[in-house]
């Protein structure tokens, strides 16, 4: 088989695997989130469908599938149908350049579960986050509904305000690692755990975490789609599978952001203790544990904090986060020039 066909088959297999895992992880996350939130709120959560409520995501999927597909009378057909598609496309595009585990050898080939190892990986992710706004804007506009439009405008303004802080928080790491490739940034953090960027660039980590929570519209930044505000924000008029797609896009975004946090700040698949294996199967274990911890913190935040009001949210993004992260960029640049090993 020619090398081109071989590469094509491997790439197709990787695509299939990543998409399959993401879709299943989405449904598992919905169940885990509801159960964990419930325990935090001193109640039980879904525990009826199947043993311990494990079949709840399946039940939700079946329910969504059979709901009636509504479309408002004067809504713009193409845009109404296209909005969830654009949202999920943007969510999955950013999944393509992130490695989902360490390199491992299989049948004598060195493989890594990463669909595209771009030289400008981090910049590409920044580009795709800026394309994520279109899903929201389209959804809000096409529904021909005041609440939807207001929710969409608020949501997209929040997204691209915090996107700036998100991108700037990465600049310090890129300077320290000297490359835009995600694998290079992960390998820069090998060794003892104090090499992790969370300890070496603490301000960037905090800013990234806050900006990422705002980017995926999680509490405390979920005003645009909060259940008690603006009906349901930009997805007011969506029902059935289109709504399911929008939820899927949101969860996939959240998982992406958690995986990115692990790679950029928590050392990816490195265990933080030199000598412990970090490639192959143990590497997967450390990676999964770290991603799980970050997802748990997202759920914990949801169960604990109230939400920001819209003007407080925008104030915080522009007047606090962006100056802080800009100062961090200058500080990091100065420290690197002075020879501090960051």
């Amino acid at each position: 088989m020619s090398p081109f066909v071989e590469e094509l088959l491997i790439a197709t297999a990787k695509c299939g695997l990543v998409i399959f895992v993401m879709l299943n992880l989405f449904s598992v996350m919905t169940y885990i989130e509801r159960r964990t939130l419930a325990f935090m709120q001193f109640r039980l959560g879904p525990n009826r469908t199947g043993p311990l409520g494990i079949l709840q995501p399946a039940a939700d999927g079946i329910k969504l599938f059979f709901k009636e597909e509504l479309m408002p009378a004067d809504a713009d057909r193409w845009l109404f149908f296209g909005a969830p598609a654009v949202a999920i496309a943007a969510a999955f595009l950013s999944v393509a350049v992130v490695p989902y585990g360490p390199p491992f050898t299989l049948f004598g080939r060195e493989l890594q579960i990463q669909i595209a190892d771009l030289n400008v990986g981090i910049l590409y992710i920044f580009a795709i986050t800026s394309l994520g706004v279109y899903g929201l804007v389209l959804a809000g506009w096409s529904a021909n509904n005041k609440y939807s439009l207001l929710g969409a405008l608020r949501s997209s303004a929040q997204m691209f305000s915090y996107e700036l802080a998100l991108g700037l928080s990465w600049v310090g790491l890129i300077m320290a690692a000297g490359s835009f490739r995600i694998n290079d940034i992960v390998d820069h953090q090998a060794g003892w755990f104090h090499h992790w960027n969370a300890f070496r660039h603490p301000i960037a980590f905090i800013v990234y975490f806050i900006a990422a929570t705002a980017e995926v519209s999680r509490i405390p930044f979920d005003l645009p789609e909060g259940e008690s505000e603006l009906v349901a924000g930009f997805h007011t008029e969506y029902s059935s599978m289109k709504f399911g797609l929008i939820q899927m896009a949101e969860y996939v975004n959240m998982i992406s952001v958690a995986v990115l946090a692990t790679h950029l700040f928590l050392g990816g698949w490195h265990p933080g203790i030199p000598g412990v294996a970090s490639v192959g199967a143990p590497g997967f274990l450390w990676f999964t544990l770290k991603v799980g911890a970050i997802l748990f913190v997202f759920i914990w935040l949801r169960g604990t904090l109230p939400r920001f009001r819209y003007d407080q949210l925008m104030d915080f993004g522009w007047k606090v986060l962006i100056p802080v992260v800009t100062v961090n960029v200058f500080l990091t640049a100065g420290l690197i020039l002075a020879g501090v090993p960051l």
Partner: protein
Amino acid sequence: MPIDLVLFYVLGAVAIAASVAMIAQRNPIYSAFALIATLCALAAIYGLLGSPFIAVLQIVVYAGAIMVLFLFVLMLLSVRPEEGPSRSKSLKVAAGALVLVFAAQVTSVVTAAARGTGSATFDASTRQMALKLFSPEFTYTFLATAILILAALVGAVVLAKK
């Protein structure tokens, strides 16, 4: 035929089709989305031409910021599809002939020199771009652009205020 050549022709066709859709659509919001498709196709073509930094920058700046601005303005001004008579037929024919003549002229001048596929050692990585951008050759341009952006920021806020 190598895969990147096939991709280039496919993306070129997509870009041309999307831009024709943009000028033909009555609804300005559909035109805006057609333009976004053109810009994304162009970004992919920049990637094929060996410029990853410009490709990503095209998505971040053009498709991700400028077109969002266009869409916001279109939505806030509640722009409806164009009503009223469109241009007269003779004007369309004259404009079409003019632009075709222009295209023929430009193509004949540009394809007169055989350029092949460009230089083999072409390093347009971000590092090389940064070295060139921050070199003394482009310092004045860089600073002037920064002041231009500041002026545009202030100007846009002042002009759009009630």
